């Protein structure tokens, strides 16, 4: 039997069973052992009782994604055994004193790894530590990394609790070695320690690196973790964090802060964004730099608050009445989440417009190992007026961008106005109405789209130029498709290539047209019943994507079913 050098691992249980903590311990044990790892949790918005499933993969290569099946299942309650035992291929860890492994339906060769938790730990609650210890042993890793990690994790607790958990983990580790032997897995540890990050953390980190000075928000899953990351760090890094009374206040506060000269951001999910949308137009009209993060979840309406989806694209593109310039960016990886967040501030300030950074629950909430992030990001702020000139805040320019002024500067006083206004900012919507001037001001603002287009992340085809099938996607679906593409093209085959849309507005119609009109066949893989990405592409290029794999059940795309969809599209005449 060949030794496996990757491991997929599920932890199942109820919300409140401590799955997040167990997952973090495992993830960090892997990452600190120099491995790559990826973990995604299906969770619920009810605090206790809902079923939670953490799905993890670890190995030496970065190209990892949510696994279809676990090699190893850690079941923290009976429900998890009943639901997930049938999916495990190598073995199942559980407290055999309290739970019963179903005899039927197990995969051939899957081993019963029941743990005598009551013998190994002081209380049943420590089953997590026991199981984590055992899992680390079965992954073929040493105990030291886990041990150090648990020391840290329980630093805030009493010495008794810390020691008891450490002992439980050690007991689990040793028991697994003695009682279970090897599962034929040995993860290739020993590389440098790696960072672990979620998409939302990366967004927050990118914002901080870019000099974000003001963050206002209202709690909403799955955007709240940005708030949770900022809140305890705000005073350390010179960011004012304000929890607002609602999303309308949150976005308007950010606009006020930006008007006062601070780089400002807010974040929310679909329902909150709906409430913010009027103010997106305000930022557009007053030419106020603003970054808004929209983390999509299952819709419509309250929908599936803790499930993933990609169906807010039209809401974001259509936000607010009238025509005004804005940029829409969609990172596809955690690293891009970081980089695009930082870039968003430059676009917002250089173009003096709202920039919408669109993520999805899967991208924002899953954790993975990342590397190569530099926090020394480029910062460019666009033109500022020099005092003493004949100041026209909204001077008509070729680029559409006019020199800014910030309250506190002498001699540059002006009023930003949501009504149509002239170059000085004085309103021309009423008595001084002037259709010619109005058209000039509209054209000036809309010209900024050209300026923004030049700053957007590039749009390019990945994989072999002449593949049989071009996959089209955005957001969190990308890493999976990239992975599948590599699998399908193994051995130098040119079956599949991949177009991931990262710049959504202004739309890169030239690049996308070039790619799609020279493709042989296209398959869109997107998380929207309305195929919103397909529609946007057709809107801007005329190209109709005939094959579509649309998923809107709240779960991410999984390798197996996605592969089947790709094979089907490949098979089609």
């Amino acid at each position: 039997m060949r030794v496996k050098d990757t491991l997929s691992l599920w932890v199942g249980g109820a919300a409140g069973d401590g799955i997040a903590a167990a997952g973090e311990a495992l993830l960090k044990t892997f990452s600190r052992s120099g491995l790559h790892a990826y973990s995604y949790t299906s969770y619920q918005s009810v605090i206790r009782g809902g079923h939670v499933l953490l799905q993890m993969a670890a190995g030496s290569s970065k190209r990892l994604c949510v696994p279809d099946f676990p090699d190893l299942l850690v079941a923290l309650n009976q429900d998890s055994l009943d639901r997930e035992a049938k999916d495990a291929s190598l073995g199942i860890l559980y407290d055999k004193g309290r739970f019963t492994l179903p005899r039927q339906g197990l995969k051939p060769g899957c081993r019963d790894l029941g743990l005598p938790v009551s013998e190994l730990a002081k209380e049943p609650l420590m089953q997590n530590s026991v199981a984590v210890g055992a899992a680390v042993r079965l992954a073929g890793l040493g105990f030291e990394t886990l041990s150090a990690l648990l020391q840290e994790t329980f630093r805030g607790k009493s010495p008794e609790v810390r020691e008891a958990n450490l002992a439980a983990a050690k007991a689990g580790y040793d028991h697994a070695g003695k009682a279970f032997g090897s599962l034929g897995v040995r993860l290739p540890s020993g590389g440098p320690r790696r960072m672990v990050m979620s998409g939302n953390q990366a967004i927050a980190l990118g914002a901080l690196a870019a000099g974000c000075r003001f963050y206002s928000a209202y709690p909403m899953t799955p955007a709240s973790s940005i708030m949770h990351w900022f809140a305890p760090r705000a005073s350390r890094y010179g960011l004012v964090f304000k929890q607002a009374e609602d999303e309308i206040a949150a976005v308007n506060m950010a606009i006020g802060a930006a008007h006062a000269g601070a780089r400002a951001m807010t974040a929310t999910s679909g329902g909150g964004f709906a409430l913010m949308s009027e103010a997106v137009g305000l930022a557009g009209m007053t030419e106020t730099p603003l970054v808004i993060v929209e983390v999509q979840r299952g819709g419509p309406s309250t929908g599936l608050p803790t499930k993933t989806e990609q169906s807010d694209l039209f809401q974001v593109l259509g936000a607010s009445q009238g025509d005004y310039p804005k940029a829409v960016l969609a990172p596809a990886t955690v690293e891009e989440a970081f980089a695009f967040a930082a870039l968003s501030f430059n676009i917002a300030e250089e173009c003096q417009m709202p920039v919408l950074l669109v993520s999805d629950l899967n991208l924002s909430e899953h954790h993975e190992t990342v590397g190569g992030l530099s926090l020394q990001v480029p910062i460019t702020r666009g033109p500022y007026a020099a005092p003493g000139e004949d100041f026209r805040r909204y001077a008509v320019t070729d680029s559409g961008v006019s020199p800014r002024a910030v309250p506190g500067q002498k001699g540059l006083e002006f009023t930003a106005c949501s009504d149509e206004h002239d170059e000085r900012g004085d309103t021309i919507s009423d008595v001084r109405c002037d259709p010619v001037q109005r058209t000039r001001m509209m054209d000036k603002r809309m010209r900024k789209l050209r300026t923004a287009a030049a700053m957007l992340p590039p749009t390019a085809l990945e994989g072999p130029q002449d593949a049989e099938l071009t996959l089209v996607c955005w957001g969190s679906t990308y890493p999976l498709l990239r992975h599948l593409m590599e699998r399908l093209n193994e051995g130098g085959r040119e079956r599949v290539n991949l177009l991931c849309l990262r710049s959504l507005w202004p739309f890169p119609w030239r690049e996308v047209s070039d790619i799609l009109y020279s493709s042989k066949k296209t398959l869109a893989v997107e998380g929207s019943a309305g195929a919103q990405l397909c529609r946007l592409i057709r809107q801007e290029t005329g190209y109709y994507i005939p094959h579509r794999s649309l998923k809107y059940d709240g779960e991410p795309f999984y390798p197996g079913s996605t592969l089947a969809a790709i094979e089907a599209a490949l098979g089609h005449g």
Partner: protein
Amino acid sequence: MAERTNPKDWKSGVSPDWCPGCGDHGVLNSLQKACSGLGLAAKDVLVVSGIGCSSNLPGFFRSYGFHSLHGRAIPVATGAKLANPALNVIVTGGDGDGYGIGMGHFLHAARRNLDLTYIVMDNQVYGLTTGQASATTCMGVKTRSTPEGVIERPINPLLLALSAGATFVARAYSMEPNDMVEVFKAAISHKGFSLVDCFSPCVTWNKLNTYEWFKSRVAKLDGASHDRTDLAAAMRKALEEDPFPLGVLYERLDVPTYESLDPTLRKHGAVAGLPLGLSPEEQEELLESFL
């Protein structure tokens, strides 16, 4: 400070397009006098408004300004103040803007005690949209939206502000411009959230609450007999309607402002002016935290 002294210096190049006789003219003049009287510099003043006749004020006032969305002046002002607490942030608007659609923001701002001065031109009607009932229109009044008369009791903005924790609550009347100037000066000088509800008649759409009507219905608050630090007394005064007391009903000085409590502002001061980018040490400690 004390740079500008002439109220005329506070006029923008645009002359007010309010109806002749509109109370808002008086409010604008008083605000200009108050700012010049306090010796403020235009560069340090930010006037934020929503949408409405009254909300057009920043366009006629020479300082930094933000003429924002209907009902959203307070959040915009909040963000600006938090980004740069050195600014004198004055919020101006109407009863519809502030007490109707903006009610939630108004009262949350009051409890927050950010140092904002909120001046409401309360004409008890929606002026700009041509005369519908507002949250302060009196019972029974016929408007374009209530042809058979208003059937909701008007709110009492002073009482609500007091109940929400505002630390300065006053009322002024645009026909008493001198008093209004003094009230504005006190409100701007107050450290914390201040509300000045200004009777500012709409001569076009409000046929009940006219100058004539107010004549016998307002009276200057007797400063000697009223203890403006007493919440219960202020609430009693706020409930008086015949006559409506004009002046400062309440001022409480012992509540710290929000910005004086915010950990970031305490440490860094105005964040709007901080240089951007993380220091090498900050970068390292942040990266480290993800290991």
